[in-house]
């Protein structure tokens, strides 16, 4: 098959906040490098940062020592399964990242004295609201710096040469045009696996994760891709902090059953509690925030405050709110499965186990180990989603810039490229009625029910794996009627892989820790499971292994 070719020094696959930040940072440090961003839809409009909460975590450097937060995180969030050095670096870079974002065109509100306008969220953290045009502004900055873009272009597979990654086989989702992009360094910024269940997470379909796995990259912490949030039962809109005010049909405050002190964000025990209440016939469960606080008193004769400045995201938020409000009749809630598997294993400069391949943002968050025993980001660490993406992008760019003089575009295996493109043809030519949506629906049946994926038990995981097996059995039969369908088939294949990895690793981890919850192994077992589970493809087989956690300044209690 004939195909187009492109060539660049640095190929960034994925044009969300992580990919754009990395492209800009590389170009700022090394203007001579040719940087190309390939994006499945449109870079700047893609990903989640421009549809999410629009908040950035803030640490007051005058008040918080990074290691204080690391200790808090290890105890309350990451359950001693995190890379503490990396977390300390993330906190220490907080102010620098905010300044970078501002210099790239992100609008972060400031006070008259030039300091950021922050609002406190806890004893150690605060937040800054940002507008939803953040990624569009960074794309504009990237274009000014000379970063090139190919939009509507999806990854099929990474290309390798002597075990190192030398670029990617991609295709236009508009007309199927195949293309080989040869690159000195390749950066995956393709987001997490969200299984097409939650609306805002619609673009996180794990195809970059699957391509990395197929190329032989190591994955890590695959079992922490099972995030769920409480949502209104009609609009499925999430309720933030609803876990603190959960009530059953008897009007009992059921939050007391699982939460002793206020937590940073929803714990998985809230999801377990919801399931238990409904199973025992005590449903529905609703959240009740109580009456809104009274408005602050106005000083007499105070001049009327000026109306707030219109923001880019105002209309987006208003439309979403109005549509949901039209159907939500009360505050009944149920879990919305989100997933957020982010497992590509990387070092502190976001290098994967394969030479020439880096992974940043939501495709390597848990794989970096920074998170500990928690999915996402934000991973019970509100406001950290965007900043973790920026953090990993800056670290990655630092590593690429340090080796810029040695970057060279190497060869690739022609047969490998042809095999990748043959996958498109096979899907389009196959005479079969099996669609990507059928496969996806089976994976969703494995992942969405929370008693299978969040509050786990060996028996229930077997049931889930049956669905995954059924989905996997359909893969060779899948067909597509056009290139949009081809894209969906690749995504469905990635979802099967993610679900399989999740349940295999979850079955291995015979304990409960942080977000990870097993009914049949309810205790944390530091003796045996203070370890990361890693997995890679070797000779076509899925091979799991255990890895030691990097040295910890704050060790797990019974490890001292």
């Amino acid at each position, binding site marked *: 098959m004939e195909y187009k070719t492109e060539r660049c020094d640095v190929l960034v696959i994925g044009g969300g906040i992580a990919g754009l930040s990395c492209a800009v940072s590389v170009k700022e440090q090394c203007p001579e490098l040719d940087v190309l961003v390939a994006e499945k839809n449109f870079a700047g409009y893609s*990903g989640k940062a421009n549809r999410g909460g629009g908040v950035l975590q803030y640490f007051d450097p005058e008040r918080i020592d990074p290691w204080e937060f690391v200790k808090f995180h290890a105890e309350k969030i990451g359950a001693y399964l995190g890379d503490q050095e990396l977390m300390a670096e993330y906190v220490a870079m907080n102010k620098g990242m905010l300044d970078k974002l501002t210099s790239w065109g992100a609008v972060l509100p400031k006070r008259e004295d030039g300091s950021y306008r922050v609002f406190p969220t806890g004893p150690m953290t605060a937040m800054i609201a940002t507008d939803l045009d953040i990624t569009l502004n960074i794309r504009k900055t990237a274009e000014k710096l000379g970063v090139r873009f190919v939009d509507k272009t999806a990854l099929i597979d990474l290309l390798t040469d002597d075990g190192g990654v030398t670029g990617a086989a991609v295709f236009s989702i508009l007309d199927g045009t195949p293309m080989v992009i040869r690159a000195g360094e390749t950066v995956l910024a393709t987001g997490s696996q969200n299984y097409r269940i939650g609306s805002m997470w619609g673009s996180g379909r794990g195809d970059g994760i699957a391509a990395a796995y197929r190329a032989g990259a190591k994955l890590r912490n695959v079992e922490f891709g099972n995030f769920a949030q409480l949502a209104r039962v009609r609009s499925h809109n999430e309720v933030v902090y609803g876990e603190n005010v959960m009530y059953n049909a008897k009007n009992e405050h059921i939050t007391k059953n699982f939460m002793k002190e206020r937590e940073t964000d929803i714990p998985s025990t809230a999801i377990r509690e919801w399931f238990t209440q409904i199973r025992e016939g005590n449903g529905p469960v609703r959240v009740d925030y109580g009456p809104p606080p009274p408005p602050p008193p106005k000083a007499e004769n105070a001049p009327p405050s000026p109306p707030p400045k219109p923001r880019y995201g105002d209309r987006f938020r208003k*439309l979403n709110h109005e549509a949901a409000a039209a159907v939500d009749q009360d505050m009944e809630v149920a879990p919305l499965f989100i997933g957020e598997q982010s497992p590509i294993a990387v070092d502190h400069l976001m290098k994967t186990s394969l030479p020439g391949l880096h992974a940043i943002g939501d495709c390597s968050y848990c794989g970096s180990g920074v998170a500990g025993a928690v999915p996402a980001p934000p991973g019970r660490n509100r406001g950290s989603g965007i900043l973790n993406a920026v953090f990993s992008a800056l670290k990655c760019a630092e590593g690429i810039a340090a080796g810029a003089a040695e970057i060279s575009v190497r060869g690739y295996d022609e047969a490998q490229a042809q095999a990748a493109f043959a996958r498109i043809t096979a899907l389009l030519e196959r005479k079969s009625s099996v669609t990507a949506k059928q496969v996806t629906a089976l994976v969703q049946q494995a992942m969405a*029910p929370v008693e299978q994926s969040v509050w786990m038990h060996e028996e229930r995981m077997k049931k889930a794996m049956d669905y995954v097996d059924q989905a996997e059995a359909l893969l060779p039969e899948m067909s597509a009627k056009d290139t949009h369908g081809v894209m969906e088939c690749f995504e469905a294949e990635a979802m099967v892989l993610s679900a399989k990895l999740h349940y295999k690793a979850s079955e291995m981890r015979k304990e409960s820790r942080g977000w990870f919850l097993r009914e049949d192994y309810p205790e944390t077992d530091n003796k045996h499971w203070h370890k990361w589970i890693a997995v890679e493809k070797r000779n076509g087989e899925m091979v799991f292994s255990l890895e030691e956690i990097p040295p910890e300044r704050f060790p797990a209690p019974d490890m001292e």
Partner: protein
Amino acid sequence: MINTRHRIEFDPDKCAGCQLCYKSCFVDVIRWDAANRKPVFQYVEDCEHCFYCQSVCRRDAIRVIPDYESEHLLQSFPQYH
């Protein structure tokens, strides 16, 4: 979400052909008809009802009408499936 029944109403007479709706769709629901300089809402069954296309349209040519009943939480209890 898959197999949703959200609808998108489009008024071609209002459309200025700016492409913002096409570019803003993060799940490839909207394609672009270059000859007529108009969007084509080709894969509406994949719409995630994020409202981005409607919110960026400066001419109010687009209206997303979500059908929340067609979205499912997929929990094991019939009322939440």
